[in-house]
């Protein structure tokens, strides 16, 4: 079994490559899910940002 992990002396290279790749896949899945979960909130923020300048009257209304 330990022979399998040693990989004929190349264990550090093989396992770090596979480890990083696994991490990249997991991080990407997590990032995509988090972005989707946060999207409605982000849409509301963007909508209020877009509306905000319009709420400021630029010309004073005549009495």
């Amino acid at each position: 079994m330990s022979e399998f992990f040693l990989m004929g002396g190349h264990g550090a290279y093989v396992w770090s490559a596979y480890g990083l790749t696994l991490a990249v896949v997991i991080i990407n899945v997590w990032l995509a899910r988090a972005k989707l979960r946060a999207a409605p909130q982000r849409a509301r923020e963007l909508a209020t940002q877009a509306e905000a300048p319009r709420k400021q009257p630029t010309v004073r209304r005549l009495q």
Partner: protein
Amino acid sequence: MKLPRWFHQFGSPPYVYRLADRLCPWLGGLGGALLAVGAVWGLAFAPPDYQQGESARIIYIHPQTAYIGMMAYVVMAVASAIGYVWRLKLAHAVAVSAAPIGAWFTFCALFTGAVWGRPTWGTYWQWGDPRIMFEALLLFLFLGYLALREAFDDRDKADRVTAILAVVGVVNIPIVHYSVEWWNSLHQTSTLLAEGGPAMTTDMLIPFLIMVAAFTLTFYWLLLRRLQAEIVEREGDARWIRELVGEGAR
């Protein structure tokens, strides 16, 4: 130029959003399963290489992640061109969604290449090596694209300007691919696309192709989920989105 009718369906955000919801369980389930099968096969059951020994097991992840990075770039460039020419917002949303995935996988390809290079070439990194340099340029194109977007407050302007960068940068893709043939590189030439068929035995080719399929499915899962988020952000005040979110779907 007039677009065919089926194309307009793919320009409709609600249609694409729902299509993504239907496809993602299959892409994710099958992609995840094949990743597990391919990794175990490549690590435990495929034979070691007669020259490189056990380090050659990196061949089941390195070319695949490199290919995902390049495919992500092509998706980004084609979507950008469509978005720019036909002013299709959804196409820009596809381009934006592909960029971070491409950056991650290109980084992954550079890393797995470095740790494969050490036992095989005697070095992690070689400045000036054409394959390594153009692959690094690919990473910087993705990062430059993402950084350039941040420079704009206006999303439509960001879409149009970054689309130009994406389309111009696509010339780098054939350069990356042919760099090992055009110039002297430490990097070996393509094993799968070798002249006269794949230059590996069947017991290596099967896990190799399983991993190609696994990463491809995973990429499209990631792309569609990010695209859904991008659609919700861009169409936030549309009624169908409010209804969808109101349902407490996610």
